[in-house]
């Protein structure tokens, strides 16, 4: 079980990194989206896997009746999902605004903050 997910996680990371390495903002954003899923699966897998038993205590019981899926990584991933979603939303809008303002979606062309032909500082005193 962990093995299958480990390999899956690796694929998620590989794709995400490949997208992040692109020059195009939108592909980078897609990479960010995949990266979030990759990490969530990674944390989830790190907490070890158990099939189909949700961590919910049945009515009438005070503790789980059988071995349940590890609830802690679920809580962590839930927090991480929310956070990465917020950041993702922000970055999407940022990409959109950057494109509007800068007129390019190619990061090589985004050279306002670090202009290519930057002047040397004064050489005198």
């Amino acid at each position, binding site marked *: 079980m962990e093995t299958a997910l480990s390999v899956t996680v690796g694929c998620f990371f590989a794709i995400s990194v490949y997208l*992040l390495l692109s020059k195009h*903002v939108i592909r*980078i954003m897609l990479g*960010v989206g995949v*990266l*979030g899923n990759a*990490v969530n699966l*990674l*944390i989830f*897998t*790190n*907490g*070890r896997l158990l099939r189909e038993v949700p961590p919910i205590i049945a009515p*009438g*019981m*005070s*503790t*789980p*009746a*059988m*071995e349940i899926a590890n609830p*802690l*990584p679920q809580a*962590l991933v839930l*927090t*991480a999902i929310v*956070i*990465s979603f*917020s*950041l993702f939303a*922000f*970055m999407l809008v*940022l*990409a959109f*605004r*950057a494109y509007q*303002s*800068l007129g390019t979606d190619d*990061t090589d062309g*985004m*050279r*306002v*903050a*670090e202009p290519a032909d*930057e*002047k*040397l*500082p*004064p050489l005198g*005193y």
Partner: protein
Amino acid sequence: MASPADAPIDYAAAMVTAPTSAADWIVVAPVLAPILLGAVLLMVRHKPVLHPWIALPGLAIVLASTVALVARVAAEGPLVMTMGGWLPPFGISFAADMLGSVLAMTAAFVALVCAAVAVRDIDTTGRRYGFYPFVMLLMAGVEGSFLTGDIFNLYVWFEVFLISSFGLIVLGSERSQLDGATKYAVLNLVATTLFLIGTGYLYGIFGTLNMADIARKAPGLRETAPLMTLATIYLLAFGMKAAAFPVNFWLPASYHTPRIVVAALFGGLLTKVGIYALLRTQVMFFPVERAVLSDVIAWVAVATMMLGVLGALAQSDIRRVLGFLVISGIGVMLAGLALGTPAGISGAVVYAVHSIIVMTALYLLAGEIAERTGGYSLHDVAGLYRVSPALAAAALLLVLSVAGLPPGSGLWPKVMLVRASLEEGAGMLAFAILASGFLITIAMGRMFALVFWREGENLAVTREARREGLLLLAVLVAPAIAIGLWPQPLIALGDAAAAGLLDPSSYLGAVFPQGAQP
């Protein structure tokens, strides 16, 4: 496994039963106050005139509680509150030791000053679109990072200040801001994601998230590849946050783009949180792995120092010069980490305090310069010696501080680190610290001469500016010089912080008063 629902409940097995005194809340107040008031600020978003009246007292509370915290930690050792009343390591502990408290206090101080500067600098639009809430939550994130005793919670606070910094960096939506922010956002996101990945692995290895618990379990897992990989991932993630070479690109690409008061806050605070996290994880969790990595860290430190200062020499925009100086300073702190000795770590802590104050002040100084000359370019800005001798004096003191010359605050941590390097036989580090200091002297000496001394007809028009900025600048310069003249108290705190990190027994004792695993 299942037990009947009506079994008697043994609360003491799950919860802290001793009452929590109100005074203990100083450990959570630095986080809680900005969150509460940040939320209130959002509710009165359309009454911008109220914003400073909410934000400044809030930050004052943060400062007051962190000062109290430092005093209390100095007197009684680490202060712990485990949230929800659950026994550690099950609940999230806030654990203030000397390292966290000192940095928390310094951060609160500069944030308060910056927020005061912003009263004048940030217009109604900026306030309506969240300047003060961003600052409050940024501080909540930063203070939370310094004070939390839980590694995943540390990640959460990292994200809190990261997203707040996103808000601040784009506030204004100028073209260069959007460009810089894109790089800042993507690269920082990768960094925090690496941190999260590391934390996922950490949980998989240790089965715990409480820092004290990790520290006490780590010795049992020494010398294995997963632990080493974990230490390395953290090194990379926090090195990136701290802007260590070769993963520092986001900083020069972005720090000069936002409003100057924002840059001041960033330049002072954000990278230091990375340094804090490096110290916390590498020294407290992974001392053995850190020792293995020390050569790598040392070379990173050297490269960061040198490339930072070379970058500073190459810039003509004052803000960009400062961005590179931030980086160079990070290299110096990494040197302390590379050494890993009490003296080295203490030096890094003292340097961090110095750097928070001085880099913030330098950015604010740049703001004052621009206020009087309308620009930041070393090609245009001139003649300020005549216009504002007081500003020149402040500038000179800051230049001396950042260059590590007396009577500035930068001198003593550099002395500490050079000495620690020589004691460890790390001549390369000592050389790099001194050489980077020398090059900063040249860069900043030239800057001082060009901006203040130089006069010329084609240069920017200089004009008188309002006084408050200068006054607030003085509020930052004063402690810098005080540290330069009488560093003993700060060094004592730094030594205590280093001792606490290297031998976390008092930290462990504070988190687990019963000692053994519950």
